[in-house]
C-alpha cells in the first residue's frame, strides 16, 4: 500500500553561483543576481542571496499572494560577525546593517518591495531547516491555504568558523511552491517511517535540495528524531 502524498511540489527556482548545471532553466548560477523586482532603494540593502530570493519569489508567486516560509540555519554570518567585531572595538554600528541583521530581513524586504502582506515566517532549526519547513508548510496547507512558498537559503560560513564544520556549507538558495492538490506535473512528497537503515544523521542544506531538484541525486533524506521524509520525483 502506498502512503498518500503529504503535499505536492508544483514549481521551484534555485540559485547557486558557480554551479555547473547551467542547462536547467529553473536554476540561476549568476554571481550577481539582479533583484529586479524590488525597487532600487530597497534592493541596495540586500546581499546576493536576498536579491536571488526576490528574483525567485517574483517568478514562483506572480501575484505576491502566497504565505512565505523562509529558513536558514546561519543567516548572514559575515555581516553578523562584522557587527560583533565593531561592538568588540566599541565602534558605532551601521544602522542600516543593524536593521537588516534580523533573521526575517530578506522576507521583510521582499514583502515591502512586492506588497505581499501575507503570513511570513523565518526559521532556524540547527540543521533541520528543511524538515521544519515541511512541517510548517503542512500546517498552513491544512488550515486551508491553497499554496505556500517554502524558501531555504544558506551562505558559506565565515572563514574563522569553517574549522567547526565537517561539511562545508555551500552558498545557495532554493524556493518551492507547494500545495495539497495533485496535478499532472507536480511531484509528490511522501512521508515514510524510519527503517533500521536510517541510522545516519541527515541534515540537507539548500545545495543538497538543488542536487535533488536538478536530478543529480536520486533521493533526498531528511531524518527527524522519529520520522523520515522521502521526496519522490514524478515520472
Amino acid at each position, binding site marked *: 500500500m502506498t502512503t498518500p502524498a503529504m503535499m505536492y511540489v508544483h514549481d521551484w527556482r534555485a540559485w547557486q553561483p558557480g554551479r555547473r548545471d547551467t542547462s536547467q532553466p529553473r536554476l540561476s548560477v549568476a554571481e550577481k543576481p539582479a533583484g529586479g523586482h524590488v525597487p*532600487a*532603494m530597497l534592493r*541596495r*540593502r540586500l546581499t546576493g542571496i536576498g536579491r536571488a530570493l526576490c528574483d525567485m519569489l517574483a517568478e514562483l508567486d506572480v501575484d505576491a499572494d502566497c504565505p512565505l516560509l523562509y529558513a536558514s540555519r546561519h543567516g548572514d554570518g559575515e555581516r553578523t560577525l562584522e557587527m560583533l567585531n565593531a561592538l568588540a572595538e566599541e565602534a*558605532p554600528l*551601521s*544602522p*542600516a546593517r543593524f*536593521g537588516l541583521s534580523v533573521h526575517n530581513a530578506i522576507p521583510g524586504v521582499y514583502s515591502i518591495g512586492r506588497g505581499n502582506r501575507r503570513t511570513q515566517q523565518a526559521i532556524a532549526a540547527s540543521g533541520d531547516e528543511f524538515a521544519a519547513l515541511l512541517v510548517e508548510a503542512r500546517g498552513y496547507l491544512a488550515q486551508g491555504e491553497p499554496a505556500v512558498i517554502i524558501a531555504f537559503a544558506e551562505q558559506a560560513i565565515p572563514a574563522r568558523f569553517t574549522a567547526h564544520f565537517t561539511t562545508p556549507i555551500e552558498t545557495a538558495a532554493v524556493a518551492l511552491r507547494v500545495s495539497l492538490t495533485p496535478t499532472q506535473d507536480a511531484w509528490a512528497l511522501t512521508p515514510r517511517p524510519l527503517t533500521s537503515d536510517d541510522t545516519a544523521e541527515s541534515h540537507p542544506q539548500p545545495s543538497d535540495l538543488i542536487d535533488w531538484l536538478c536530478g543529480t541525486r536520486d533521493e533526498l533524506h531528511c531524518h527527524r528524531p522519529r520520522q523520515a521524509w522521502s521526496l519522490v520525483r514524478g515520472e
Partner: protein
Amino acid sequence: MTSELEHELKHLIIDTLELEDVTPEDIDPDEPLFVEGLGLDSIDALELGLALQKRYGIKLEADSDETRHYFRNLRTLAALVEERRTA
C-alpha cells in the same frame, strides 16, 4: 554651481548609503534628500549622521529641528559641515 565640499558630500552620500544607480550628477543640491527628491529614508538619516560624525567629527541630535533643517538638502548639509566640522 556645486562647491568642492558639496561634491565631497555627494560621494559620501552615495558610498555610505550604497546608492548603486545614483551618480553625483543625479543629486541636485537644492532638491530634498529625504522622502522626496533623492528619496532617502529614516535609516539613511541615521547612517548619514554616523558618517558625518566619523568624517567631520559633527555630533547631531537624532530628532531635533536643527538636524531636520540641516538634512533638508545638499546645500544645508554643506553649510552644517562648514560651520561645525572639527576634523
